[in-house]
């Protein structure tokens, strides 16, 4: 389990380093995810080295967002000043994105299936 955590942190470290060094718009952890995927596909890293650690972190991923969410309490005043455009924009747009993305993929999947 520990070696899995070491690997995950190392990949995050390299990702953060690249993000800072080249001033990339992508956060280091997302770059780390891409690098780890590449390493797994190329066979440089074996899945069993980190499966246990990865499964544990993914199982509790939702919880890691809780402190950031509690931070919303600092901005209640800011939000309440223009609450209607802020809340309506955020809520409606979230449903719009799910519908547009979901329908686009559904439509293209059907196109590809009918080709096959």
């Amino acid at each position: 389990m520990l070696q899995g955590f070491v690997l995950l942190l190392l990949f995050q470290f390299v990702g953060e380093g690249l993000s800072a060094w080249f001033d990339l718009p992508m956060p280091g952890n997302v770059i780390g995810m891409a690098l780890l995927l590449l390493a797994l596909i190329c066979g440089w890293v074996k899945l069993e080295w980190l499966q246990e650690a990865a499964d544990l972190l993914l199982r509790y991923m939702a919880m890691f967002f809780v402190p950031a969410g509690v931070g919303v309490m600092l901005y209640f005043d800011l939000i309440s000043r223009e609450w209607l455009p802020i809340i309506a924009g955020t809520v409606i747009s979230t449903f719009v994105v799910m519908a547009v993305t979901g329908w686009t993929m559904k439509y293209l999947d059907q196109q590809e299936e009918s080709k096959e």
Partner: protein
Amino acid sequence: MNELLSSPLFGITLTLIAFRSAEWLYQRTRFILFNPVAVAIISIILLLKSCDIPYADYNNGGRMILFLLGPAVVALAVPLYQRRDQILKRKLPILLGIVAGAVSSIISAAGIAWLLGGSHKVVLSLVPKSVTTPIAIGITEKIGGIVSLTAALVVLTGCLGAICGPEFCRLIGVRSKAAMGLAVGTAAHGIGTARMLGEDRFSGAIAGLAIGLNGLATTLIVPFLWLFLG
């Protein structure tokens, strides 16, 4: 007592208790409004407010929990690797779905806020609301929005997608695991992905992929749209 409240022990213990209780409540009731992340956040806010404990005290422990998000995002490579064949086979629908989602997110969020009379800075702060926090903050800084407002709205968007994303997808006829994962991941980034991981590992993997790609797409599209609209 004050020293104890500002030690990391307080924030960590409180977060674990709140999340475990919220998870228990959700497992017992299966009621979608009792999403564990949302319930844990609201109960901690209520407790801090009612006991007059500053957020900074809580966050001494909170930031240690948040730290684990970094390696957890890296760990999303594992379900992606396990399902790589299915993903590669559908790379075009996945990419186009994300780009369509990114464009519709920018236009609908900013457009609705503008129509309802939101001030210029507020409208700009809504632009990256479907993008994962670190990328969203970078975008808001660049276009001149309010960074802290964006950070709050990103969490709000994530909770909304996590609470009713899969249910909404079924309602509008999006039923495949891949399309649901992509829709919720594109709209509601990591918090939506965490919910999808609980539903199905493949959906979760696709949602995880969408976090990174939507961040990239939005980063690239925003300056482009500005040329047109500005």
